[in-house]
């Protein structure tokens, strides 16, 4: 690919120093599964300093626990997340989402932070991270901060990161006793037709009363969304079929409310309603895990 300079920092500290001092426009490359596709399309990186952080997997690729949270290093690959015992135990919906991405060869090299930073509305990790209430840890020469999923992305293919910002980790509150469902409609090879993902988490007490419920739709809105008003519809009750239907209707009504009426709305809104109802019935019919 065409770039001005190529820099491969030897450590995180070295990377932060590079980010603080480089004069050219900065382009970060991790796995490169988006960057190398873009580099084929045009010469957008021709004047950039390409900063290759993939070699920092020792520092930035670990998946570990920190008290009540799971910390996923920015360079953890989709394949590593999908099979991580910690993720499977405390955030299995993220393992399902990462397993649904592309094929093994891409999952083995592509990173979670790249999936987030690329900000594709069709990025599959985003919906799961949104219902998990994940926070994205960002480091810059000015310091360290954490952004929620609905703050990190501005609009399709535009994140809210500054040019010298580096995602270093994803923080996910550990969940136990939840049921989960990640559903992906359509495949990337059929990208031209609309697709959609649904991600849902449900926790009930021994009487079947819902203690917590979170649902979102992905590949549909300009950025990852959470819907506390929809979630609240099931919390504190033992849901009957009419309650599930009301949730499916409320969730699918978000599509014209937020994304506006578009050509795809006529397709997406009823599909969303049907899928949502199916998922809720599965969750409530299924055993608690």
């Amino acid at each position, binding site marked *: 690919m065409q770039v001005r300079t190529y820099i491969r920092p030897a450590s995180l500290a070295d990377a932060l120093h590079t980010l603080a001092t480089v004069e050219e426009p900065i382009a970060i490359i991790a796995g*490169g599964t988006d960057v190398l596709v873009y580099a084929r399309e045009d010469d957008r990186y021709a004047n950039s300093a390409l900063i290759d952080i*993939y070699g920092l997997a020792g520092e930035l690729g670990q998946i570990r626990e920190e008290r009540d949270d799971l910390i996923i290093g920015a360079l953890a690959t989709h394949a590593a997340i999908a099979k991580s015992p910690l993720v499977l135990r405390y955030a299995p919906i993220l393992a399902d989402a990462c397993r649904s991405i592309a094929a093994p060869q891409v999952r*083995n*090299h592509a990173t979670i932070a790249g999936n987030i930073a690329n900000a594709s509305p069709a990025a599959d990790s985003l919906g799961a991270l949104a219902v998990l209430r994940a926070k994205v840890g960002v480091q810059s020469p000015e310091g360290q901060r954490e952004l929620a999923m609905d703050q990190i992305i501005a609009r399709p293919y535009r994140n809210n990161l500054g040019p010298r910002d580096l995602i270093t980790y994803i923080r996910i509150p550990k969940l136990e006793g939840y049921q989960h469902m990640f559903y992906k409609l359509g495949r990337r090879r059929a990208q031209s037709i609309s697709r959609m993902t649904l991600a849902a988490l449900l926790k009930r007490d021994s009487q079947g009363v819902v203690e917590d419920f979170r649902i979102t739709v992905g590949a549909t809105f300009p950025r990852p969304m959470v819907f506390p008003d929809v979630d609240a519809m099931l919390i504190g009750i033992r849901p009957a079929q009419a309650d599930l239907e009301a949730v499916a209707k409320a969730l699918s009504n978000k599509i014209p409310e937020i994304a506006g009426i578009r050509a795809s709305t006529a397709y997406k809104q009823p599909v969303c309603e049907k899928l949502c109802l199916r998922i809720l019935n599965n969750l409530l019919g299924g055993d608690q895990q």
Partner: protein
Amino acid sequence: MSQVQLQFRLNGKDYSIQADPTQRMVDLLRENLHLTGTKVGCGVGECGACTVVLNGEAVTSCLVLAGQMQGADILTVEGLSETQIGSILQQCFVDGDAVQCGFCTPGFLMSAYALLLHNPHPTREEIKVAVSGNLCRCTGYVPILNAIEAAGLRLAAEGK
């Protein structure tokens, strides 16, 4: 881009070469090292013809930056016959008529190699997942899946 010194292990041999780190790994293999067994089909990660094994995992070398070969251990189709899994796979592909035009074959072999490396006795379903990123326009896939399954059985018979 200016050249840098890249050091890596490839097919069991140590290399130290001057190369442009911002080219694609597949171009370094094919053009700098003349290892043309690795094919380029789509160039965007969709077809799997360029699959190689990087540090034990199958990756599409059209989407890996050459600079990321620094310090890595790499296996391409040229090194396959030196390995037990690889030579069994190659024999099973030939015996099972899993090769027609052959363009996709190196990629399938490398995906299958990575699978058997971690999971010597895969189920049919695990085989399908492992080659889900490889396209073949000739065989209709069934002979390929059969060949990989047969290789798993032969590995088991050889006590692996």
